[in-house]
């Protein structure tokens, strides 16, 4: 939870209130932003707002269709689907957001270094990055989880690695572009040290597009977590995650579709909202040109 | 004889009207200068004449443009297309980016003659080579197979001019044709345009921010400020006895002796943007002559002896 709110806070502080305000400005932005804020609050306060214990089984009350008191029905263990969907928000969002935060941090470092220093170093980094970028993310994630073992931590790292290339490419493109700009040339000519130039001048200028792309990638991360869940990896039972719920036994789809459909719909809606808000943010920040650079 | 005439032109982008009340005529063999700082609406005027405002999302809301007796503002896009490139040519500001970088020079120029003169590819190429030759481009036949990025800015601007001339137009609109070029090249291009006007009996609308260029080449001039024509008339009269304080300021900025096209940095204050045009005379916040009336009533363009001026308090500077 801390990691997730932390990420959110970092994302918010990345750009001024005005641009964020502008992203909220349009109707679409308002709807999407409102939804995401609500979702975030739901995730943070999940333990207090779930109507039932997400793990409490009642085998004799399994596969109940939506109704009262189980608004979204129960799964085959008799667990409350609504409570699990709410709690799942916590798992899915924190895994995806943490993964993307790691991905951004490492990707920006690599990309900035590659873009700044250039030469053989850049060539090596970019070859590796392009290779991972071209490799199916699901394969990368599956192999990685197989190597370091199951669990949410490894899922997080697997997603982080799968999306690393994106941020490295983006940051590098930003740095290469900025390096050509006059004020940086001037600073270099004045004899400033490389790390100083990178940290003080280049990175702050490159950060906004990376953050926005990162926000969009959180949506992809949620989908990848769901796909890992399809292979039975990811959140360890009985901890609910949307992905794990969506793939909890295919027979469920025909027996008690609500167990699978509700988390699926929540994933779809969340990813759409993330994308809409990201688009609005891009518009508000006017950084489309820079995002395209990678 | 007047070939193109603009009357009381008004342009709007959505609810904002960045251009209003612009009128001028241009005749064959004549060069009309439109001068002003960036943001004054001079490029918009060019776009309006070319019928290209919809590309940028703008439209003409009032006034008329007549070309060769034909009303252009009500013309269909298809009919307009026949004029564009055919009878009215455009030269844009930045030759670096005004050619398609993925195509060779030849076909880009050829297309005009093929389209407007109905030539075959072979004929069009011969014409291209000929025109490039007249523009003093060395080895024109080989140039046709080169790509834009392989050429210098001045050379590219000549190719843009060649494209504008390819269909033998009556009017040439040149939007800051020299701004992006080296000083020495600037002079060459201006001289070239000047020659073309004379040799081909062209009507040239030369849009610039550079009063010295105007003084050098134009027959008549329109001075624009914040989307309005503030003064116009024959170049000699305007330079000898500018009536509008803005014109006076512009002329005052020309460095004496050195013909290097100094930027208009000499006027205090900033050009208002289209979103915050001041009420009354748009120049009044920067005008040392301004009185109460200037802040409330927009001055109309009033004809005088040889031209017209839009000022409540016109007159030669003390």
């Amino acid at each position: 939870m801390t990691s997730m709110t932390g990420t959110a806070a970092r994302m918010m502080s990345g750009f001024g209130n005005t641009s964020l305000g502008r992203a909220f400005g349009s109707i679409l932005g308002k709807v999407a932003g409102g939804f995401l804020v609500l979702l975030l609050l739901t995730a943070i306060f999940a333990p207090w707002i779930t109507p039932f214990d997400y793990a409490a089984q009642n085998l004799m009350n399994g596969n109940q269709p939506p109704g009262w008191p189980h608004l979204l029905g129960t799964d085959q263990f008799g667990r409350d689907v609504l409570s699990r969907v709410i709690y799942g928000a916590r798992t899915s969002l924190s895994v995806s957001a943490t993964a993307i935060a790691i991905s951004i941090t490492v990707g920006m470092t690599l990309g900035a270094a590659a873009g700044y220093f250039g030469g053989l170093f850049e060539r090596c980094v970019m070859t590796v990055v392009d290779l991972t970028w071209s490799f199916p993310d699901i394969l990368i994630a599956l192999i990685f989880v197989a190597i370091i073992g199951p669990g949410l931590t490894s899922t997080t790292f697997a997603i982080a690695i799968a999306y690393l290339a994106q941020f490295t490419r983006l940051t590098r493109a930003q740095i290469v572009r900025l390096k050509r700009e006059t004020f940086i040339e001037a600073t270099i000519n004045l004899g400033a040290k490389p790390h100083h130039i990178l940290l003080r001048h280049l990175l702050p200028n490159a950060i906004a597009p990376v953050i926005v792309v990162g926000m969009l990638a959180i949506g992809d991360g949620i989908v990848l977590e769901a796909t890992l869940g399809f292979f039975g990896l990811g959140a360890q039972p009985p901890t609910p995650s949307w992905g794990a719920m969506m793939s909890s036994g295919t027979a469920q789809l025909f027996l008690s579709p609500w167990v699978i459909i509700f988390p699926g719909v929540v994933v779809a809606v969340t990813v759409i909202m993330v994308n809409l808000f990201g688009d609005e943010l891009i518009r508000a920040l006017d950084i489309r040109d820079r995002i395209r650079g990678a | 004889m007047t070939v193109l005439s603009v009357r009381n032109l008004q342009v709007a982008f959505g609810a904002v009207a960045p251009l209003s009340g612009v009128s001028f005529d241009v005749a064959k063999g004549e060069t009309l200068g439109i001068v002003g700082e960036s943001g004054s609406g001079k490029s918009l005027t060019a776009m309006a004449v070319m019928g290209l405002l919809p590309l940028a999302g703008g439209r003409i809301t009032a006034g008329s443009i007549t070309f060769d007796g034909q009303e252009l503002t009500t013309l269909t896009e298809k009919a307009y297309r026949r004029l564009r490139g055919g009878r009215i040519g455009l030269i844009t500001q930045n030759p670096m980016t005004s050619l398609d970088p993925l195509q060779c020079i030849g076909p880009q120029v050829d297309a005009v003659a093929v389209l407007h003169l109905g030539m075959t590819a072979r004929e069009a190429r011969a014409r291209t080579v000929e025109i490039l030759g007249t523009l003093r481009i060395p080895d024109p036949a080989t140039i046709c197979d080169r790509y834009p990025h392989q050429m210098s800015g001045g050379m590219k601007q000549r190719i843009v001019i060649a494209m504008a001339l390819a269909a033998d137009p009556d009017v040439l609109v040149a939007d800051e044709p020299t701004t992006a070029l080296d000083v020495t090249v600037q002079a060459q291009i201006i001289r070239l345009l000047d020659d073309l006007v004379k040799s081909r009996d062209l009507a040239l609308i030369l849009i610039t921010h550079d009063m010295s260029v105007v003084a050098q080449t134009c027959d008549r001039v329109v001075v624009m400020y914040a989307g309005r024509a503030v003064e116009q008339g024959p170049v000699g009269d305007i330079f000898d006895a500018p009536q509008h304080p803005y014109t006076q300021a512009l002329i005052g900025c020309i460095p004496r002796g050195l013909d290097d096209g100094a930027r208009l940095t000499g006027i205090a204050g900033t050009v208002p943007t289209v979103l915050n045009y001041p009420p009354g005379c748009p120049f009044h916040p920067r005008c040392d002559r301004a009185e109460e009336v200037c802040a409330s009533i927009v001055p109309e363009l009033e004809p005088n002896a040889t031209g017209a001026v839009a000022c409540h308090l016109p007159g030669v500077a003390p």
Partner: protein
Amino acid sequence: MRHQTMTKLLSGTALVAALTAFVASSAFAQEAVIAFDAGELGATSYDPVTSSNLNTATSMIYDRLVEQDADQSFHPHLANSWEEASDGMSWTFKLHEGVTFHDGTAFDAQTVADWIPDYADTENAFLTAAIESVEVIDPLTVKFVMNRPEPNLLYNLGSAFMGIPSQAAVEEMGADYGVAGAVGTGPFKLERFDIGLETVLVRNDDHAWASDLSENQGVAHFERLTFREIPDQSTAFLELKTGGVDVLLGIPTDFIEVLKAEPNVTVIQMPGTGISYMPINVTAAPFDDIRVREATGLAIDQEAIVASIYKGVGAPAHNFLISSLPEATVDPALNVTHDPERAGALLDEAGWTMGDDGVRMKDGAPLEVKLFTQNGSEFTVLTQVVQAQLAAIGMKADITVFDSSTIRDEYKENRHQLAVRAYDWNNSDILDWFFSGERLGYPNVSMWNDPEGEQLNKVAMEGSANSEERIANFTAYHEYILSQHLMVPIYQPTTNLAFNADRVSVPDPVRGTRFRSQTVLDMKPAE
């Protein structure tokens, strides 16, 4: 409400499907499409001698010397009769007369003599390890000379890995045998094998040597069988529903309910050949205390599990062997049954007292254990119920889900405490496999190495001269294992198949230990 709409929607479609199926069945009545059990997908060869993974279609191509029935009894097939020497050191088989391979070559005693040595140096060598040599007595009589008594010989001979291939074909095709072609004496011939996709078999019109497990002693009723590989259960179900597949093998328990709701689908349940269970690592505290192990077993409510998550399909398991094996009949006191009160008492006795939060404590440490399992809902569903039942006696179990290869590494590294596993094997030698001190870690997940156990193992594995002795010895070994509380038996699944009754009919009950050629011979196109 939602559920009902869904069902209505589906049954409307089923009508359409049934109509389509009806039209189709009159045109292609002589063909049937069978989907493999998801557990036997990915076979890369039809060579029984060298393969490590064979599917059901293998049993259609090859015949075996003997067949085993669901009650574990053995029946003649290519061998009409057999005799075991009283000391167990030799076996004599009388072979069926007039049997020919698909390539026209004859099956006789020499075939058997040439075939058995082929197993040497393969991954399947253990099947024939006890056979010293094979002697041809006459063209229809063959004698296996043993290097030790092997009461399990018939079981091995009935295995799919001991289908008998044509020696001529094996020689001719060399390394390509099993992929480019496969030649046996079975009721069907291999026509095409698209690895990972499907296998097409055509009828062997010469086949007249069915075992007595089939009613039909002649050729098969179907001219053509297509076996398809469909990994996803919902896809397989939808194929059956839409008429793309006629028979589904190996349906997971949770799909039975779905299938039974379909009007044209009939489900057959066969006695299963495996057990789901929870091994306990006896070397990992707190399970080094036998009282804690016993309490763990008493926590599991097998009956409730069968009734709830398995909807009454299959049977509770109270000891380690499937109930059709004679060795499964043990002293009733040793069977593991649900008794949470006694579990609580045992834990109290062992020093684990109930804490305020429902987790037991001892010396300030809570009773928290690791519960491992494999990915796949057949494991994770059961494991979550087990977790809840353990919580009821004050044991907090944390689940970790591994893939099947990684989890073996965890066992070998002795990082586990409890695990939920399953095995599929219809012979009591499974006890040796999972509890022999020679295989600590994996497969001996219980990490149990006990002198008395090893002694009983040795007697059961090698000290039995005949079947009766073997049963007695294995029962004793089994009972001792149960007394040590090394694992908790949970569930005996059934083996299920479903078929489209508009297209085909499958005899119920299915004879044999699983769906194989003996059943396919009796399978008919629907009237």
